[in-house]
């Protein structure tokens, strides 16, 4: 495509549109998680090639998101879906896995210069760890540096507000939209 003279920015724009369509198809369950991951990886590979033609040597990203499942929690399907949707939406995503301590969230956010910290808890006994992340960011004086979004089975909008998070999403499509709003709000 590049050899044929296609403008890389235009091509990136088309890929971004495709990513949105893929996300929508996943949201309608016309495709499933593994398809979403494969498509997302293909898109990222395409973005890398096109991005190398851009000033700065990489495709523009909407923002950087640090995502993980909290300490003591092994559930990561939902988190993986969200990470993939965010990648497909144009975010640079740093996935730090599951069973992640609140301190590790903070350290990884700083190390990767993230704008958003996204944390998931799937059990009522691990949900308190979401509060720990927010409290730790506050106590270490860096709370204002990040937008914090939370999710997972027992988590609610009310709980997110109670702990001082910036947003909550009930599912992956909601999470991608929320991340886009949060990064615009900064």
């Amino acid at each position: 495509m590049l050899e044929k003279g296609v403008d890389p920015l235009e091509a990136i724009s088309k890929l971004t549109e495709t990513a949105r369509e893929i996300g929508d198809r996943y949201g309608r369950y016309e495709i499933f998680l593994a398809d979403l991951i494969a498509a997302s990886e293909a898109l990222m590979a395409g973005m890398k090639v096109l991005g190398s033609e851009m000033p700065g040597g990489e495709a523009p990203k909407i923002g950087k998101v640090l995502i993980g499942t909290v300490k003591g929690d092994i559930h990561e399907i939902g988190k993986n879906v969200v990470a993939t949707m965010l990648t497909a939406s144009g975010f640079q995503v740093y996935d730090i896995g599951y069973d992640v301590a609140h301190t590790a969230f903070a350290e990884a956010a700083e190390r990767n210069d993230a704008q958003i910290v996204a944390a998931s808890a799937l059990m009522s006994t691990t949900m308190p760890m979401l509060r720990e992340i927010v409290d730790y960011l506050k106590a270490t004086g860096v709370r204002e540096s990040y937008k914090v979004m939370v999710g997972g089975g027992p988590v609610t909008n009310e709980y997110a507000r109670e702990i001082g998070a910036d947003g909550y999403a009930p599912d992956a499509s909601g999470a991608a939209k929320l991340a886009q709003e949060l990064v615009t709000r900064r």
Partner: protein
Amino acid sequence: MWDLLRRAETGAIIKQRDFDMKRYWPRLKELVKEYDIKYDPEHLVPIDDSVLDDVYEAGMRLLLDVGFLCIDSSRLMTFEESEVKAALRNLPGKGTLGEGKDAVTFEHHDLEDKRTPTVLSGPTGTPLSEQYALKIYESYAKEPFVGVIYMGAPQTIEGLTVKVGSPLELQAEVTNVAWARSATRKAGRPGLALYGVCFPSLSVDMASSSPEYGYRKEDLRCLWPLPQMKVDYATLTRALHFAHYGIKSNTAGVGYIGGMAGGPEGAAITTIAECLGITLLFRPFLIQSIPLNNMYSPWVGESDSMSLWANSVCNAAMNKHTKMILMFGCYTYAGPCTEMCLWEEAAESIAGDAVGAHPYGPGPNSGLVLDHCTGMEARLRGEVACAAAGIKREDANEIVKKLVSKYQKVVESKKPPRGKSFAECYDTETVTPSKEYSAVYAKVQAELEDLGLKLVR
């Protein structure tokens, strides 16, 4: 068991992403196509035995061709067909839980088995308040159909929030067991077995194995693999610990619909593959097939059309081909004191009876809402399971489809009725259901009887 668990240290190394995307997913898609497995909303209870044979064989192939991944060692654990078949042949097919007069027997059931199944019910992992946990357990212990109590998860201890990995977690679990034992004693059923919640820290699981203050050898423990087709050191250590302690376990194959297992077809095959693999690895007493539906996030359940189909097919296939003692059901989308919760339960119980599985749960509201669980849900599980014993699959299918049609659209809206907490639908002094809940219950009973069920009241 040890010989098998050693494979977590000796198998070939593979990255988790490669296991998922290059080994598991492609093979699963091939098997769905090769065996022509198709979700059939007209047969939520399968009546065509060739479907059962195909799904079972596809599940066996998936296990043998893909194996399990130990994510802590990044090593493949592969299995031979002969050893899987030997493990299945050696299943006892029968056993007891609990003590003395309160001991109950679980036995392998055939399809359309005429024998009444044994009910395992309780809060089912639902978060519990300190204020009402004891009363909630009493509400289950009072229900004569309940053969084993499935524990809930205390949220606070002396006002402090219970966090996984903190000392509060062990304190909560010891207190939790004490509440449940007190409830069973008050109900005159001191030997009733308790089934511990899934997913506590490994240290708490091990520390709470105690005949004095924790789980006795006559109780039951939870042991699930990780999705999909994975284990970790904690799971393997848990399995070894339960074997050394001498307590029976319940384990589960969980193909997540909407997750890596894809649609209901992939989830069914994956669930069977996992059930076969964990039978070999863990030598469990009870086995659940739980193709949980992730599509209606944040709620998860298995009473919706896709999950119910996959669950029925998996249970029927495994009951036809093995001596497993299978459990059916786990969560409902709706909450207590709603008609929908009771319809969902009834659908699960009827389907379960028809395919030869014992009733399990439910955890209303996907087991996620504080104190949203009561003994009335267990009562309906038992009444329907009794009434539907021996039901023909064709008849079960017609009733189940009618029940599902009552709530499927609500599930798809992702806004199931929240229902009421224990304190809102029970008299907390006498631990009896409120007039409102009794009326809701009676209405659903009458509707079920109109559908042809002769309920044992």
